[in-house]
């Protein structure tokens, strides 16, 4: 192991400061932290909380219901990231809708959905646009391309979310936030600095390789005992202070802020994005007059408490019994990046 990594590991293992709650906001961090075995080298007074940064986990049941309605009632071809297919809606998932004859197409990117629409002009195609600041530019770009190509059979069902409102809401759930590097690559660091300076919220922008994650933990465990709020960009090879100006412009051009429902957390003001009025032709809700759907989740599911660090996945009564990755009851069990799924996957291997 390289010198610096050894040094980071020694700092982490040797931590003897006060108890600290660290929330990894991003699902990819949750997954990588388990995968790299970071939990095993952390001293007991360092508590890790898996926050709401997995777009699949926070997508509300009502959104799945809307997509199913489009597929089954309007014969729309649904293009989606694969992770969403097994997320439970109020009564069924998109996988269930597919077995009922719904056309559900898996794609890797919104641009693939656009390409599909271009090649299938006789079908109405809707892309399920979920995700945070990192994914939203791609959704906007697909709309831009559709407009330029003169397509009339492509639209977004948008549930895009933005992180600031969530940080604000979760600020008491943790002492230090591991910020998702790829969100900051788009947004820049101004907001995180402000949260630190004005709100006293400490955080560190973190990358995704072993050395980046260990470096971030070493830095935060050095800074936390000093007792002052801090902000550090530990991912400078990707994240600049101002972020991606072209991406910010692209989002602004097509989308505007709105209130947004987060599964498990409820409504958070100004934490979502919807298509602007000028882009209504590409808004599936307008185009197909989707009726309002409230969405119900299973009362047994404690995803909301898990995402806020109020309980661990293993505290949920149905964890690993009624709820497994093959038969998920809540969204946190569906995606690889969900907290419950990560716990299940690694605990069942005896780690």
């Amino acid at each position, binding site marked *: 192991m390289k010198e610096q990594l050894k040094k980071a590991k020694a700092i982490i293992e040797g931590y003897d400061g006060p108890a600290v709650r660290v929330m990894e906001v991003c699902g990819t961090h949750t997954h990588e932290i388990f995968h790299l075995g970071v939990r095993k080298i952390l001293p007991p007074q360092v508590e890790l909380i898996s926050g709401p940064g997995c777009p699949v986990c926070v997508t509300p049941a009502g959104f799945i219901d809307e997509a199913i309605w489009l597929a089954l009632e309007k014969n729309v071809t649904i293009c989606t990231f694969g992770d969403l297919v097994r997320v439970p809606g109020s009564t069924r998932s998109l996988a269930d809708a597919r077995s009922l004859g719904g056309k559900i197409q898996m794609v890797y*990117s919104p641009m693939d959905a656009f390409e599909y629409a271009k090649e299938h002009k006789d079908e109405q195609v809707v892309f399920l646009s979920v995700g945070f600041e990192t994914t939203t*530019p791609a959704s906007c770009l697909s709309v831009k391309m559709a407009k330029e190509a003169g397509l009339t059979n492509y639209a977004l069902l948008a549930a895009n979310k933005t992180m600031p409102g969530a940080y604000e809401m979760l600020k008491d759930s943790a002492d230090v936030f591991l910020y998702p590097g790829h969100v900051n690559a788009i947004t820049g660091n101004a907001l995180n600095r402000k949260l630190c300076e004005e709100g006293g919220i400490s955080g560190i922008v973190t990358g995704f390789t072993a*050395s980046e994650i260990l470096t971030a933990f070493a*830095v935060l465990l050095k800074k936390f005992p000093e007792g002052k709020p801090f902000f550090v960009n530990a991912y400078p090879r990707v*994240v600049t202070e101002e972020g991606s100006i072209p991406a910010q412009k*692209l989002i602004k051009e097509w989308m505007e802020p709105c209130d947004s429902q987060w599964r498990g957390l409820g409504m958070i003001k100004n934490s979502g994005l919807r298509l602007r009025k000028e882009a209504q032709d590409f808004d599936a809700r307008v185009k197909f007059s989707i009726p309002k759907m409230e969405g119900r989740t299973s009362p047994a599911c404690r995803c909301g408490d898990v995402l806020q660090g109020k309980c661990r996945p293993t505290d949920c009564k149905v964890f690993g019994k009624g709820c497994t990755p093959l038969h998920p009851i809540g969204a946190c069990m569906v*995606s690889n990046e969900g907290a419950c799924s990560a716990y299940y996957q690694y605990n069942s291997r005896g780690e």
Partner: protein
Amino acid sequence: MCVGLPAKVMTMKDGMAVVDASGAKREVSAELIENLEPGDYVMVHAGIAIAKITEEDEDEAEDLLEGLL
């Protein structure tokens, strides 16, 4: 769905870049990055290059710890 991949730009054409991510070749949009050239490294997310990165990433992470502590 959120995993970002570091990749090397192989060729550029009409705002699209063919990239090599650990041996897998893919075509991604280069719309968000000005003046991208073959040989550059980028972070790819959901079919789009979201940021230019330096090549010697691991080395940089190593120096980083020194700088941040």
